[in-house]
C-alpha cells in the first residue's frame, strides 16, 4: 500500500512524543532540574524529551573535560602562594599552535634560572584546547579548566590571559579533577619521600631536611 512507509515512520515519531509524557509520569517531579534526572536523560534509557535546560540545568562535566588551561599554585602554610610552574618551557614546546609565552628570569646573584615564571601568557584566541600542556607538564603545574562560561564583549585585552588571570589554587584543581589529583598527589608524595630519603642519606648530619612538601622544584 502506498503510504505505508510514511505511516510507519509517523508511528516512530508518535512513540517518541508519547514517551515524553510516560517518562514524565514515571519520574514524577524528578525528571527536570535534578541531578538524577539529568543523568537519566543522558543514559542509555533516555526516552522522550532529551533537552537539558541550560542555564537552569547544566550537564555535569566529566573529569577529563578540557577547556582553557590554568596554572596551579600551592598555598603555603604561611599563606603565601607558591607557583608550581618552574618555567621549564615544556608546555611551550608541546603547544601545537604556539599560544603560550613564558618569561623566565635568572637570579642575578647566582646566574641560575629562578624556578618561577615572571610572566605567563596564553592567547586564548589561538589556544586549541588540545590538553598537551597539561599532559606533558612534569610538575602538574598547568591543567585544563572546566570553566567554559567565558563569553565576553571584548578581546584585545581580555583574551590574552596573564599569569594572574591563569592562576588558580590547588584546592580548585582538587575539586574539578578529584581522581586525577589523587593519583598525582600519590605520585608526588612517593617522589618526595624518595627525595627525602636520598637527601637524608646524602647529608646524614643534617637532622631536619625539608622534603620539599608538595612542591617539587625538580632541581
Amino acid at each position: 500500500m502506498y503510504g505505508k512507509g510514511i505511516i510507519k515512520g509517523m508511528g516512530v515519531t508518535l512513540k517518541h512524543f508519547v514517551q515524553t509524557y510516560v517518562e514524565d509520569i514515571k519520574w514524577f517531579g524528578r525528571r527536570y532540574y535534578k541531578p538524577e534526572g539529568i543523568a537519566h536523560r543522558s543514559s542509555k534509557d533516555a526516552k522522550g524529551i532529551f533537552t537539558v535546560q541550560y542555564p537552569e540545568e547544566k550537564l555535569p562535566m566529566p573529569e577529563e573535560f578540557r577547556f582553557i588551561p590554568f596554572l596551579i599554585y600551592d598555598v603555603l602554610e604561611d599563606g603565601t602562594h607558591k607557583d608550581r610552574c618552574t618555567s621549564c618551557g615544556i608546555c611551550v614546546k608541546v603547544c601545537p599552535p604556539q599560544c603560550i609565552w613564558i618569561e623566565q628570569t635568572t637570579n642575578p646573584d647566582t646566574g641560575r634560572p629562578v624556578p618561577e615564571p615572571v610572566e605567563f601568557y596564553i592567547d586564548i584566541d589561538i589556544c586549541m584546547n588540545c590538553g598537551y600542556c597539561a599532559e606533558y607538564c612534569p610538575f602538574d603545574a598547568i591543567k585544563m579548566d572546566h570553566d567554559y562560561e567565558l563569553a565576553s564583549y571584548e578581546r584585545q585585552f581580555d583574551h590574552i590571559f596573564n599569569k594572574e588571570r591563569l592562576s588558580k589554587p590547588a584546592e580548585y584543581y582538587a575539586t574539578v579533577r578529584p581522581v586525577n589529583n589523587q593519583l598525582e598527589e600519590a605520585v608526588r608524595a612517593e617522589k618526595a619521600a624518595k627525595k627525602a630519603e636520598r637527601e637524608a642519606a646524602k647529608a646524614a648530619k643534617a637532622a631536619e631536611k625539608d622534603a620539599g612538601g608538595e612542591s617539587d622544584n625538580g632541581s
Partner: protein
Amino acid sequence: MTEAAPVVQSVLETRFPGVVTPDERKGYEGYIVTKEKLVELATALRDEMGYDFLSSVTAVDYLSEEETNLEVVYHLYKSTGGGSLVLSVQLPRDNPVVDSLVSVYPGADFQEREAYDLMGIRFDKHPDLRRILMWEGFEGHPLRKDWKEAYHNEDTKPFSNRWPDGQIFRSEDKNPYGKNNIYPVGFDPTKWEATEESLLYAGLGKAVGEKGNIETDYLVVNMGPQHPSTHGVFRMAVVLDGETIIALKPVVGYLHRNHEKIGERNTYLHNMPFTDRLDYISSLSNNFGYALAVEKLMGKKGAPSERAEYIRVIMAELTRISNHVWAIGFLLNDLGAFFTPALYAIEERELILDIFEATTGSRMMCNYFRFGGVARDFPEGVLQKIRDLVFERLPRKIDDIDAYLTDNEIVLTRTQGVGILTPEDAIAYSATGPMLRASGVPYDIRRADPYGIYDRFDFDVAVRYHGDCYDRFIIRLDEIRQSIRILEQALDQIPEGSVISGSNPYQVRVPAGESYGRVEGPKGELGFYIVSNGKPHPWRYHVRAPSFINLTAMEKMCIGQKIADVVVILGSIDIVLGETDR
C-alpha cells in the same frame, strides 16, 4: 611492500626498460618513473596489472642544498585488495611539467589541480587546470619550501620567541598591514583585475559566450558558499537547461586552513590535534590514520600496545556510528524532512559524544591517539557506558531509524535512481568509502588491506548494488550494524594492560623515509602521506581527504539530473568541508 611487488617489478622492468627504476633512497619503496612514459605506464598498470585505483596524487618539494627537484607521487592500488604501488616522477624546479593522468584515472582531476595550486606543478593535457583551493591570481605556490606566508615566524616549531623571553605579541602587530596579508613589491591594488570567476565560467564552457557573456538559453546558478544544504562553505556552479543540469563545477577552498603548510612546521606530535580539525565530525578516525602513518615510519618502536589497539578500534567504530547517524540525519534534512530525523540522529550522536568527552576530554576535538597507543585509559564507568550503548541502545535505535525512514515513500521517490554512479565510474573516479561500496564494489580497507587489529574481527563488508542515493543512504545503516558487530567483539575481547607502549615522549624520533598510512574513515579512504628526513618535523605532510576526492565524481553523477536533486546527491556523498579544503 606486498607479496606481489617482485612480480610487478620484474614485469615493469622488462616492459619499460629505462623508464622504471626502483627508488633506492632509504625508507622509500616505490619506483621512479621518467615523465615521458608516465601515461603509457599508467595505462599498462591499469589494464594489464590490475592497478585500477589511483588513491592519491601529491607532490613533494625536495628543496635542500643538494637537491632542488619537485616530485609528483602517485599511490596506486588494486580494487580487489592488497598493498600499494608507489610511483614518483621527478621534475625540475624551474619548469615542472608532467602529463596529466586524468585520461587514465579521472579521479586524478582534483588532486592534480591541488598539486598545481599548492606546488605549481603543471599537468599537461589536464582538461581544466585551474587553482582549486586558493583563488586564481593568488601570488605563489604556498607549499613550496621557499614560499613564506605573511605571519611567518620561524621555519619550525617551537618558536624561539615564546620561551624563555616570552615577549608576547600578536602576529598582526608585526605585519605592516595589521592583517595576515602580504603583497608583491610594488603592487598597485587599483589596477588589479580579478580572474577567478571568469575562469570558472570559462571552465563551465557551454553556457558562456565568447566574451564571457552568459547566453540566454542556459542558466548558470551558483549554489553556495552560503547555502543551507551545502553542509558548510561549499559552492557549486551549475549550468541549467530548464531544470536539467548540463554542467557542474564544484568550487572548494572556502575553508582551506593550510593544514599541510602548518603541518610541515609542526612536530609530529603537534599535528595530532590538527588532524582532529580535518573531518571534524569524526576526529578519532583522523587520529587513527595519522598515528598509523607515523607509526609505520617508526617501525617496531611505534607498535601500539595490545589494549591500545582495542581502544583504537572501539573509538574508531564509535566514530563511524556517530558520523553515519549524522550523515543520515542531514541527508534527510536535505530531502526536506527538516530536522526531525536529524534530531533523532543527533540524540544518538550526543550519547556517543558523551563517551568521547568522558574519555578524551572533548566532544569533537578528541586528540586522543599517541604514537604507540592512546593518551589515557577509559575512566571508571565509561567502558560500562559503551557496553550499555553498544549492546542495548544502539541496535534498538538503529532499528528505529530504519523503521522510520527506509520504507518512507517520499524518501524512496526522491532517492531511488537519482545520482547513479556505476561501479566502473566509482573506481575510475577514485571514489571511496560508502560511495564506492554503494556502487557495488566491495572494497573496504579494513578488509582489503587490514590495519590495526581489524583482521581479528568477524564482520561483513556492506555492499549495495544500485549506486544511487538510496543505496548510499541505506549502506550507512548497514555499516552502522557492522560497526556494532565489531564493537561487540572488541568489547568482549579487550585485554587489561597499558594503553601506550613506551613513555609517550613529547618529541618522537622518526627515521627518514616516506609512508602512506590509510584507514577506512567514515567518509572513505583517509590517507596520510608523510615524508620524513629524520628531523622532528615532517618534511611533507599530505592528507588524502576522502570528501575532497569523492567530489570528483559529483559532476558525473549530477549531469542529466534535476537541480533539486543536486542537494540530495551532495548529501549522499556526505562531505565535510574541513576535510575537503583542509
